[in-house]
């Protein structure tokens, strides 16, 4: 029982910028990899893009929604915050500047909206954006970011 309770529930984290460049890809536990990381990231961004235009069109509340696939700025139109399959749960957050954070976890994880907000504002902004050596829009490798992220994610188990 103890072994089951301590199995990590995090699978991986993706960070994309508004152009679809994968700034960061972090893996904690991924037993199955069918695609190369690059292919996988492209497919993930494509899925999020289409899901967003899907939810924007499906939105039962908003009035004028335009055509399916009409471009929406970050924050415009009805977006989504998570989906769940039988093997994983994907939580999604988009910042006003179009930075997308995607956290893949075990399907039994609860609501991770606050966790994503925390990762964005207290880890990504603090350790990556405020790093003077970081060029915006470029993939990053930042030790302090990884260490803090690992530490924070452990509290989410």
């Amino acid at each position, binding site marked *: 029982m103890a072994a089951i309770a301590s199995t990590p529930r995090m*699978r*991986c984290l993706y960070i994309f910028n508004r152009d679809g460049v994968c700034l960061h890809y972090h893996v904690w536990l991924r*037993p*199955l990899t069918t695609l190369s990381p690059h292919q*996988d990231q492209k497919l993930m961004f*494509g*899925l999020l893009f289409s899901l967003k235009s899907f939810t924007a069109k499906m939105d039962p509340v908003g009035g004028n929604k335009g055509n*399916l696939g009409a471009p929406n700025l970050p924050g415009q139109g009805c977006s989504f915050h998570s989906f769940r399959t039988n*093997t994983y749960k994907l939580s999604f957050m988009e910042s006003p500047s179009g930075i997308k954070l995607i956290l893949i976890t075990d399907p039994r994880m609860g609501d991770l909206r606050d966790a994503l907000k925390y990762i964005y504002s207290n880890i990504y902004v603090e350790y990556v954006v405020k790093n003077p050596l970081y060029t915006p829009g470029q993939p990053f490798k930042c030790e302090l970011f990884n260490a803090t992220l690992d530490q924070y994610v452990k509290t989410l188990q």
Partner: protein
Amino acid sequence: MAATVYNLFVINKSGGLIFYKDYGTHGRLDTNDSLRLASLWHSMHAISSQLSPVGGCTGIELLEADTFDLHCFQSLTGTKIFVTTESGTPGMENMLRLIYELYTDYVLKNPFYEVEMPIRCELWDLNLAQLVRKDGKAGLTGR
């Protein structure tokens, strides 16, 4: 809490829309949009299972959007039934199973129904309307 079902879609194994119904005035879609959304959902469902970090993934079961929830049920033969509801509606998995039961009883067992073709069966319409209305009133729980 008054639970509301906004739309119901049934898509065949190749992604074609074979049944669409909207309930109430919210989220009404025109025919072309419902067809497009159905086939878009079919492909995203397939992609989501390709991206799984663990083997044996069968695709999205629940999508939580800002203003609605989408619950999807996939049968073993690849037919998908999905409904959009108000956010946080409980007991939809059960209801989707009941809808699938109605589909097998009143659509698949209908001798005049051609498999994978649009559904036009009076009894299915009738029973489905009853189920959705009843569950909507009962708050979709306790079944």
